[in-house]
C-alpha cells in the first residue's frame, strides 16, 4: 500500500510541491540511531516512514552462546537507559521454567532496583524531551541538566549497590547478586526525598510555562482505539486512557505487597503522557519507600553462590516473562533445553512496539512537532533494534 498517497488524500492535500526530508539516522533529536523519512508540504508532515535497525547487535542469537549466569549482564545492554528492567525479565523467564523460588528479600530488592530504575529512566526522558522541544541552546538544556543531576544521584545509588553505573548485572537466577551495603537504605531514602522535591520544581517550571503547554497539549493525539490497535504499552497506553499496568494486572516480584496508583490520562496527547510519567515518578518513589520499610531479612538468593558460569542449569521448557519497564511491557521469551545455556530467546522491547505509533500520529503535524512526539514516545534504540 502506498502509505504516502493514502495519507495525503486523507488529509486533503495534494498538488502542492512536496519535499522529502531525512531526519536521522544522525540527527540531534533522534534519541539514538533512528531514521524518519518525512514527506513535507511546506512545514506540514504528510507522511512519515520509520527506518530502524541501525543498532542491531544480534542480542537474541548472542544469548544462545551465553549461560544463564552470564547473560543478565548482557541483557542490560538492550535497554541501556533502564538496564535493570531487561535483566529482571530474563531471570524471571528462567525462574519460571525452572520453577525456582526467589526469597522475599530478593524480591523486595528487585522491586527497589526496578523502581529506582524507573525514576532514573524518567529523569532522562524528561530531560531529553525538553531538549527536543527547547533546544540544546535554550530552555530545554536547562531542564536537561537538572534532570541529569537527579539521574546521577540514582546512578550513585546503583554504583554503591552493584559497582556499575549503567549496566549492572544485578539480578541472577534465583535472586539478586548483591545485597544492599551498610547505610545504603538511608542514602536511598535521602535521594528519593530530594528527587520528590525536585519533581515538584520541574512540574512548576514546565506547567507554568505557556509555551511548554502550547507545544504539548493537543499534539500527537493517540486515541484509545488506536493505542490498543497498535499495541503500545506503558505510559503511552495509560496516557491514552487504558489503565493497564503489568505490576497491577499480573503482579510479579511481590508487587501485590505495595500500595501504589496506576495513573491514567484520557487525552492521549504529549501532555497526557507527560502527566502519566510525572505521577509515575512519585508512585515509584512511594514504592521504594514502602519496600525499604518492609525489607525482610533473609537470604538474597535461593541458589548457592556462583562458582562457575555453567553452574545454573534450567530444565527443558519454555516461558514468557514480562515486566513493566519504564517504557512499557518488556517481555522475554525463553526456551530452555536442560543445559546451562538457553536454546532460544526472544525479546519484546517496549520501545519497538511504541515506535509503531509514530506513522499514525505524526502526519498532519508541523516539523517541530515531530521531535516533540518522538520524544514523548521515549524510544531507546538499543531496545528497538536489540
Amino acid at each position, binding site marked *: 500500500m502506498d502509505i504516502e498517497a493514502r495519507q495525503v488524500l486523507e488529509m486533503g492535500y495534494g498538488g502542492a510541491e512536496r519535499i522529502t526530508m531525512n531526519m536521522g539516522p544522525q540527527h540531534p533529536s533522534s534519541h539514538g540511531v533512528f531514521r524518519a523519512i518525512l514527506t513535507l508540504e511546506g512545514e506540514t508532515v504528510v507522511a512519515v516512514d520509520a527506518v530502524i535497525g541501525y543498532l542491531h547487535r544480534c542480542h537474541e542469537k548472542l544469548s544462545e552462546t551465553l549461560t544463564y549466569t552470564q547473560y543478565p549482564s548482557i541483557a542490560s545492554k538492550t535497554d541501556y537507559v533502564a538496564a535493570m528492567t531487561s535483566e529482571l525479565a530474563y531471570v524471571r523467564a528462567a525462574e519460571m521454567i525452572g520453577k525456582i523460588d526467589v526469597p522475599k528479600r530478593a524480591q523486595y530488592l528487585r522491586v527497589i532496583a526496578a523502581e529506582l530504575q524507573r525514576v532514573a529512566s524518567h529523569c532522562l526522558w524528561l530531560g531529553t524531551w525538553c531538549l527536543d522541544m527547547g533546544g540544546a541552546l535554550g530552555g530545554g538544556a536547562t531542564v536537561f541538566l537538572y534532570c541529569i543531576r537527579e539521574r546521577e544521584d540514582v546512578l550513585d545509588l546503583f554504583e554503591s549497590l552493584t559497582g556499575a553505573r549503567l549496566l549492572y548485572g544485578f539480578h541472577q537466577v534465583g535472586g539478586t547478586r548483591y545485597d544492599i551495603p551498610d547505610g545504603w537504605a538511608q542514602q536511598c531514602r535521602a535521594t528519593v526525598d530530594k528527587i520528590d522535591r525536585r519533581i515538584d520544581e520541574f512540574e512548576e517550571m514546565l506547567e507554568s510555562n505557556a*509555551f511548554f503547554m502550547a*507545544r504539548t497539549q493537543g499534539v500527537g493525539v493517540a486515541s484509545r482505539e488506536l493505542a490498543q490497535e497498535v499495541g503500545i504499552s506503558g505510559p503511552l497506553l495509560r496516557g491514552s486512557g487504558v489503565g493497564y499496568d503489568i505490576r497491577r494486572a499480573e503482579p510479579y516480584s511481590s508487587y501485590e505487597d505495595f500500595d501504589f496508583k496506576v495513573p491514567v490520562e484520557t487525552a492521549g496527547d504529549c501532555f497526557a503522557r507527560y502527566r502519566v510519567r510525572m505521577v509515575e515518578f512519585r508512585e515509584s518513589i512511594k514504592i521504594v519507600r514502602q519496600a525499604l520499610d518492609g525489607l525482610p531479612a533473609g537470604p538474597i538468593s535461593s541458589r548457592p553462590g556462583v562458582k562457575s558460569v555453567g553452574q545454573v542449569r534450567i530444565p527443558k521448557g519454555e516461558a514468557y516473562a514480562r515486566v513493566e519497564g519504564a517504557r512499557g511491557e518488556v517481555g522475554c521469551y525463553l526456551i530452555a533445553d536442560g543445559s546451562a545455556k538457553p536454546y532460544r530467546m526472544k525479546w519484546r522491547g517496549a520501545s519497538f512496539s511504541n515506535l509503531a505509533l509514530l506513522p499514525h500520529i505524526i502526519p498532519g503535524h508541523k516539523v517541530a512537532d515531530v521531535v516533540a512526539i518522538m520524544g514523548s514516545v521515549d524510544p531507546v534504540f538499543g531496545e528497538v533494534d536489540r
Partner: protein
Amino acid sequence: MSSAIYFFIVGFIVLNAIIGMVTYVTLLERKFAARMQSRIGPYRVGPHGLLQPIADALKLMMKEDIVPRLADRRVYNLAPIVFLIPCMLIFATLPFAPGLGVADLNIGILFFLAVSAMEIVGLFMGGWGSNNKYALLSVMRAVNQIISYDLPFVFAAMVPVVLTGSLKLSDIAAAQPDVLHWFIFYPVIGQLAFVAYVVATLAAENRVPFDILEAESELIAGFRVEYSGMKFALIQLGEYAHIIGSSFLGALLFLGAWSGPGPEWLGPVWFFLKMVFMFLVVTWIRWSFVRIRVDQILALSWKVLMPATLVLLISTAIVVVWRTSAGF
C-alpha cells in the same frame, strides 16, 4: 576630507569595540547560562575561562572552509557578508554618550530599524545558497517570522519616539535625564511598551523561544547548517552584534541611555551596563523557555502583539496630545 577621516577613524574604533564586545558577551552568556543550570561554564582557558572567546575565535579561523558541491557558490559565499553588514551598520547611528557616536542622524531610529530588518536578505541568501533542505525550511520560517515581528518591533520602539517627539536617538536619550523620567517608568505605557519591545527583539534576534530558524533539534542548525570556519564565525558575529545593538537600543529607548549617578564621564559606562542588563534579560529568557512552533509564533505576532502594540502606539499619541493641550 577631514570629516571623512573622522568618520573612518570613529567607525573603525566602534567596529572593533563591537567585535570585542561580541566575543566577551558570548562568554558572559555561557557563564550566565552555566550558573542557571548549576554548571561552572568555561573555566580552563585562562583564569575563569577569560581567554575562551579568543580560543574559540582561533579555532574557527583554523577550521576547514567547506563549500557543499551542489551549493550556489556565489550566493553561498556572499551570504555571511551580506548578513554581517546590516548587523554592524546598526551601530552607525547609536550615540554612546552625548556627542560620542559615528553619526547622530536626525532619523536615527528609523535608520536603525530599517537596517536591522535587512539582515533577512543575508539569511535568505545563506539558506538558499546552501542547497540544503534543513536550511531551506529554516529560511522559509525566517522570512515569515521576521516580517511578522518587524511591525510590533517598530510599533514598540515608536512609543518613546512619540513621547519624545523626535526620531533622533540623542534627543530620545536627552528626554530621560534621570531615573524618574526613564520611559520604562512612564505610567502603564512605558512598561507595556518595554515588554512588547523585549518580546519583539527576541523574535527579531531569533532567540529562544523564537529561534525556530536555528531550531537545532529539528533543523540541526537551520540556515547555517552548511557553514563552517570563518563564514560560520561571521554569521555568529553578526547575530551577536545584532543582539548587542538591540540591547543598546532598548537601553536607550527605555532605560535612559547614559543617565545615571556620578560624573558625566561615567555616562558611557552606565549605558554599557544597561546594555548588559538588557542582554542578560534576553539570555535569562533564552535559557528558561522552550521553543514555540512556527504557526504559534505567527499567531502570537498577528493576533496578539500586532494589535496590542498598535493600540499602545495610538494611545500614546492620544496621551501626548492630551498632555500638550492640557499644558503639562
